[in-house]
């Protein structure tokens, strides 16, 4: 049997019983379910059941759904609109689309998969009931697994040299059925692939915000805290999917706090920020 499942069955049971989930968990469940036919169908059935309980029809959202939409959606919408206002090139380009915000489960880097796996385990409700020893065992096992990752994988996120203080952002192309590779300057990446990021910072920079501009609009991602020791890099929790055609322009804004990074990414005047730009053409075979 699999030790841990990537699916969201536990959360669906909770959803069936409670009708709601904590906001971040609900977001994660939806993100997974929209990319997973098995869990997507189950999510629909569970929510239809709750709708039937609450409204006696499947075509009316439950009070929990309405409340969740109101609280969770507002920040995303405002961020998208502010991103539009701060865009410099054209007004038409400002479409902060949710359509491309589906994360490729299969395109995650091994490090991120492991981190998500550990997080999922930590969030599991059963942990509270099985005692601290089980938690410690899991965390230790995760640590051992981390150390046992193949060396060529760790090199992808490895040190770029000592004494480097300027922030760096490396960009990787992650095709669905091919190996991850670094994109330098104005590189190519096939349609349908995902992008992955590794960032390194030195004092005073601690946070980064990434704006992703496609022909369909602009999206602001982050802020992310860069938890890498000086001279090394850390993967960002961000894997945007590439559109079918065109070009993607990526701008990373490094700052000394999350709010400053976000403000600078929105185009507000902020001192001491560093911007790194990449441009990726959609080209080549998947």
């Amino acid at each position, binding site marked *: 049997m699999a030790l841990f499942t990537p699916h969201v069955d536990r959360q669906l049971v909770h959803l*069936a019983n409670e009708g709601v989930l904590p906001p971040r968990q609900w977001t994660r469940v939806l993100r997974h379910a929209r990319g997973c036919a098995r869990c997507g169908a189950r999510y629909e059935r569970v929510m239809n059941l709750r709708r039937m309980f609450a409204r006696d029809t499947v075509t009316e959202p439950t009070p929990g759904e309405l409340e969740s939409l109101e609280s969770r959606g*507002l920040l995303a919408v405002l961020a998208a609109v502010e991103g539009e206002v701060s865009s410099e090139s054209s007004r038409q380009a400002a479409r902060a689309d949710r359509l491309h915000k589906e994360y490729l489960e299969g395109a995650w880097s091994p490090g991120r998969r492991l981190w998500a796996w550990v997080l999922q385990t930590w969030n599991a409700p059963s942990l509270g009931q099985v005692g601290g020893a089980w938690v410690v065992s899991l965390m230790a096992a995760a640590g051992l697994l981390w150390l046992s990752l193949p060396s060529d994988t760790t090199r992808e996120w490895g040190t770029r040299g000592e004494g480097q203080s300027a922030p760096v952002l490396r960009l990787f192309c992650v095709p669905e059925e091919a190996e991850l590779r670094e994109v330098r300057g104005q590189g190519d990446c096939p349609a349908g692939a995902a992008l992955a990021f590794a960032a390194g910072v030195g004092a005073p920079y601690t946070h980064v915000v990434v704006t992703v501009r496609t022909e369909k609009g602009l999206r602001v991602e982050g802020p992310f805290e860069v938890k890498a020791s000086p001279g090394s890099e850390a993967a960002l929790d961000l894997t945007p999917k590439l559109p079918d055609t065109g070009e993607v322009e990526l701008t990373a804004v490094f700052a000394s706090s999350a709010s400053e990074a976000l403000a600078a990414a929105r185009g507000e005047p902020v001192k001491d920020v560093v911007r790194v730009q990449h441009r990726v053409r959609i080209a080549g075979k998947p």
Partner: protein
Amino acid sequence: MSLLKEDPLLLEAFRRGEPGALTRVYRAYSGHVARFLSRTYVSRGPGGLARVGPLDLEAAHQETFVRAFREQARHTYDGVRPYSLWLNALARQAAVDVLRAAGRIAREAVTLDDTPTAERLASNSPSPEDRALEAETRELVQRFLSGLDEATRRLADLRFVQGLSQERAGLVLGLSRQELRTRETKLRRAMTDFLVEEGWLTADAPNALPSAAATAAVMALLFPHFVP
């Protein structure tokens, strides 16, 4: 309700894109858009009329407001017509795009607004698929409730159907908070078991302990020389 129509100052702030005004408008119309998206057939899918299901509701909802809050859209709204109708039109188009992107309708699908009137009229009543879905779900709910004793059924009604808080449900049933919690735990467990039996969920309950195999695997990983 027409918030923007009745408040010129708010309308001006909204047109300028002030976050406070956008927030007020979002909060005022969030429920309306969610309900509209859930109950309205927006296009014809492979299996008939298509509407936004629970899985796509959040995406379509956000896409609607992102479009509505664009600078051009903010200035195009005249402040005279009801804003809810303006949002409905945007929501319908956003829903089609979301359903299309998710592969639930064909890429060539168009909104029902762009189809002949006769077809639009047919969309006012629930589609056969939705009738079947409702009938199946309703029957499941009734079967679950009928398997409960009278007191538990009453508790399920107060908590699941009427959505009362534990405190208020306890007052209605004459139970202390602790008694109600205990009964509710049993009710939830019964519901989980029922859904698992019906094949709606897996048996992987949230409170399940790790299996012996899983524990052994972790022990072996931690202590390679450990022999139980």
